[in-house]
């Protein structure tokens, strides 16, 4: 597949992921649409192109790992897993329901494809460091991708984890920051400014890139660059994104951090996502 065709295919996948996540959250009556939608383009690129995974063998020891450190946006992870056929698609209608494998935050014990349980912010990156370190020590070639939020970077443990990743030269670790500048209470700038995250990660010793996190060409290009890099440094992609991306009334609106669309809103949201040109 040439570069252009790939980007078109991935944009189409991102659209499917958005629709699936919205459907899931609407059916559940609760969940986190804003951050799910802002991360959708990255997730499409990872799950439909970049990750070396075997959905039919979720625990394959040489698989690339994915850690959703911002565990509350699990609808976009569950959408990716559903569309990659880790479990039947209809499972999406069980999100947050009693006995479901799709818990309100990811549970590795019950959901195939979930490499670590997350949900308490700031902690996932440390586990990704452990996975990447084990891979290095065992001479395995897998990589570990970890999605963190910009608000999440207010947690001190993120920077503890980054320090250890740099010390142990974890060039098999890729940190993706969903830099949408919104968090639960307000914008990050108001709640606790995180500053220029690319510069911060660079100052900690990472190989860091800043891109438009909704431009599929840029996403594919930076993932290519990282794959080819021979620097013994952890890789960081800070993607400038829009919370609620793709749904007119959700974009950049703080309330849509953790609220489910009602029937009417859901219909509009799906229409919006379908109408975006890819």
């Amino acid at each position, binding site marked *: 597949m040439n570069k252009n065709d790939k980007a078109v295919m991935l944009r189409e996948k991102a659209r499917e992921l958005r629709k699936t996540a919205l459907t899931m959250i609407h059916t559940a009556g609760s969940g986190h649409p804003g951050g799910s939608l802002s991360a959708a383009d990255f997730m499409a690129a990872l799950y439909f192109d970049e990750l070396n995974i075997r959905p039919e063998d979720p625990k394959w*020891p040489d698989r690339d*790992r994915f850690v959703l450190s911002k565990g509350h946006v699990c609808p976009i992870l569950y959408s990716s897993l559903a569309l990659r056929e880790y479990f039947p698609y209809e499972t999406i209608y069980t999100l947050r329901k009693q006995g479901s494998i799709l818990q309100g935050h990811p*549970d*590795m*014990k019950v959901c195939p494809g979930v*490499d*670590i*349980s*997350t*949900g*308490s912010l*700031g*902690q*996932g*990156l*440390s*586990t*990704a*460091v*452990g*996975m*990447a*370190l*084990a*891979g290095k*020590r*065992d001479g395995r070639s897998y990589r570990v991708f970890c999605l963190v939020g910009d608000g999440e970077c207010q947690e*001190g*443990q993120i920077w*503890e*984890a980054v*320090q*250890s990743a740099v*010390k*142990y030269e974890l060039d098999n670790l890729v940190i993706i920051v969903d830099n949408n500048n919104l968090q639960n209470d307000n914008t990050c700038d108001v709640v606790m400014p995180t500053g220029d995250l690319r510069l911060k990660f660079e100052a900690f010793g990472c190989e860091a890139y800043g891109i438009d996190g909704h431009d599929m060409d840029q996403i594919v290009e930076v993932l290519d660059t990282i794959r080819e890099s021979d620097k013994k440094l952890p890789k960081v992609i800070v993607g400038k994104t829009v919370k609620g991306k793709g749904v007119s009334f959700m974009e950049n609106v703080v309330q849509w951090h953790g609220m489910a669309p009602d029937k009417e809103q859901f219909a509009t949201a799906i229409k919006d996502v379908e109408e975006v040109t890819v």
Partner: protein
Amino acid sequence: MTGKATRDAYGEAILELGRDNKDIYVVDADIGKSCKTVPFSQELPNQHVNVGIAEQNACGVAAGLATCGKIPFVTTYAVFGSMRMSEQIRQEVCYPKLNVKIACSHGGFTPANDGASHQGVEDMGVLRSIPGMTVLMPADFYSAKKLVKAAAAYNGAVYLRFTRDPVPFIYDENAEFEIGKAVKLKEGKDVAIIANGDIMSVALKAAEELEAKGHSVRLLDMHTIKPLDEEAVNTCIEEIGKIITVEDHNILNGLGSAVCEMVAEKGKGIVKRIGIRDQFGESAPYEYLLEKNGITVDNIVKSAERMFQ
């Protein structure tokens, strides 16, 4: 006194384990020297990680290692291992049921002259509250070595509490230990003393003193406070009905509380808890701190005699 510190037992046991099993890892947080993991780090650098003064990260790194088949022992002081990273233990170790051990030195009042900030007096209670966590405190050097090995062989989260200073030998190197199974050091019928950790030697002296006065004492080493050996406690309730618990831990939420919970559910028997009276320590000799809280031979003997009246 002939004895050795349980933290030394940990240092020896973890090195022996690491030599035999390349999946055994130690994750240090800058106090490897105090926690006796330096020989491990020197001989087995590929199985060692030192994340620096960053305990929360240490726990997460260990969890990540465990998802890849490693058996990590996160090593720090009891205060930091139980509280600084308690939520990390909950979220990244116990909830996903990962095979991570939290091995902590300086439990209880033993870091006496360091003062309250370094005395881990609430750790067992914190860890005991987390679903799925196993909580161990060995009484001497030999039991510590055996219990470290038992923890390594057990698939799941385990908290191990060691202490700083030498303690008398209770056992010899041939003694066997099973997680969740108390050791009966004395068989008796007038009163049951249930103790754990370094304080076992105090409990043992008290038992001997009571025996010298003509009383029959049962003495249990409850090295596992979770899961508690319910059978052993139930037998004490049924056969004796008078129980004294002794521990170097807050009177709340530790061994004494665990035993009281069972007695209350049973609806019979009485318990006297001897331990830290819900207060912080201070920089002072260990013996002074125990004395101040009544964790003494004399108080155990008097408590038993009051029960006989």
